[in-house]
């Protein structure tokens, strides 16, 4: 049974979770990295071969060593310099961290990457893939030996409600007693859902968005009923937006 999240409970009673990256996401990140390794090797190879005019033997020797160094060193170098991320991991928004929350050490990065040679056996990362599926923390052999896990990188930005609601008139704000009643009756989950629907507006398809706001508005109207004159001309989306404004910015 997978846990899906990696939770740390501190001595101070704080508990925080990070979502574990599953095998499919990691495979996609690996594909991006393999493509990047291919491109870097090709470019490097062509650059090195320019020097073959001087010495063909030396150029071929440098090319052989370069391919090897790039294939082994790519992930080690990037995870070291980008704090647990490679190009593929950046694209997929995942990161390598210590399995117990410690600082990620260079030795761990080297070990997890050198052990890819076993994870890749017998072909196409079969051993690593199977280990990842059966492991509770989605660890391949390299992760297990290095004590590392791969987690999703959380959205780092702190939501800016001022920007979200700036310049909009809220017709419901004049009913202070109803707004107070709404804040008292709505659950954090309902409020959170409404806020997410507003902050992630642009991620939704137009038809899905209309339907979502319709259902949300209907549900929110059932919690507290505002007078009809203050709802006049309000679309479902505007209504949900005004409700979120009342909940999260009572002092605006």
């Amino acid at each position: 049974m997978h846990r899906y999240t990696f939770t740390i409970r501190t001595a101070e009673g704080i508990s925080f979770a990070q979502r574990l990256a599953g095998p499919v996401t990691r495979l996609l990140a690996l594909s991006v990295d393999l493509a990047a390794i291919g491109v870097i090797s090709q470019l490097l190879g062509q650059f090195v071969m320019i020097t073959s005019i001087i010495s063909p033997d030396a150029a071929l020797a440098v090319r052989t060593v370069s391919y090897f160094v790039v294939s082994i060193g790519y992930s080690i170098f990037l995870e070291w310099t980008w704090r647990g991320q490679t190009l593929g991991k950046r694209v997929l928004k995942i990161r390598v961290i210590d399995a117990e929350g410690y600082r990620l050490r260079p030795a761990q990065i080297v070990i997890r990457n050198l052990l890819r040679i076993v994870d890749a056996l017998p072909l196409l990362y079969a051993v690593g893939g199977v280990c990842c599926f059966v492991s509770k923390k989605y660890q391949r052999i390299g992760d297990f030996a290095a004590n590392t896990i791969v987690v999703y990188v959380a959205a780092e930005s702190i939501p800016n409600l001022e920007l979200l609601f700036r310049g909009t008139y809220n017709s419901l704000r004049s009913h202070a007693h109803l707004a107070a009643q709404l804040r008292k009756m709505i659950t954090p989950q309902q409020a959170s859902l409404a806020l997410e629907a507003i902050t992630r507006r642009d991620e939704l398809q137009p038809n899905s968005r209309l339907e979502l706001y319709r259902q949300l508005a209907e549900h929110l109207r059932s919690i507290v009923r505002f007078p009809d004159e203050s709802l006049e001309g309000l679309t479902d989306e505007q209504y949900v937006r005004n409700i979120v404004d009342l909940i999260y910015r009572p002092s605006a």
Partner: protein
Amino acid sequence: MIVDLKQFIEGERAIWEELDKTLSKIENDPLFRLTLENAERLHYLYERTGAGLIKISTFAAEPNLVHSLEALLARAYAELREGRSRKEKLSVRAWLSQTFPQTFRRHFHFFLTSVALTIVGALFGGAAVGFDPDAKAAIAPFPRLLQDPAARVKEEESKVNPVLAHSRGQFSAALMTNNIRVSILALALGATWGIGTVILLLYNGIILGAIICDYVRAGQSVFLMGWLLPHGVIEIPAILIAGQAGLLLGQALIGWNSSEDVSQRLRSIAGSLVTLITGTAILLVWAGLVEAFFSQYHEPILPYSFKIAFGLAEFVVLVIYLAAAGSRSSASDD
């Protein structure tokens, strides 16, 4: 009950930003050291952010904010809980003169095991070829080794230039990369509780034993020593050190005579594994150069006595280095 999110964020934003800034400074500069005052401030910021997370998780349930704070706290926790000191700037000289040989000696019993396994394999390989010369075809990894030793010696000694005279650089690079890859495999197979490393060492021993037996039986011992010793005295110990690392990893996974849990055991050997495999790679670079630029020259170009003496000298230097380098200084933490 919903927290006034706007007021809450406005009140706490400065704390979170300060924590993020402090952590970025620590993370981006490996040599950055916190003063007592800085550490106390970092701890305060961590606790305050933690308290904020509890409040926001309980009352407001705003997922983006919760995730942001969790990510920030995870970073702070990693720095605060980390008991190991940050590394001083890496000194190549100190690493070569102390860290590598000291690490090698600290885990010497695994090196001896590695040697013993190779000798067992060599005895088996030697016996197999000794009793049944046709077994060479099944054991030898390269077609060139299937050649009759006397015929090969005659062929090599009749050349003015070695076969790869015009592609020595490429040959050398191929030898280095291939041997380093095999060494990494010897280390990585330690993840199979050491079983894979044991098999690899035995197999290497079998090949070595078969070749030695074949040449000795054909009366070509001097050629064999002149050919193998210059690079073999470095290459073979290097592979044995990689095997030592693989066995160390295997032991950490099995945990014989250890009260620590597996993650603690693996954590405690991580530095040693990297040191041993890095040392192996350096030795193999040297061995690759010697094999391509020196070992392939035979009599009459280079006298065998000179090649054998060169190989023995290398071996003595290697033994002295691994046995004595850094023995006067205290064991370094790798």
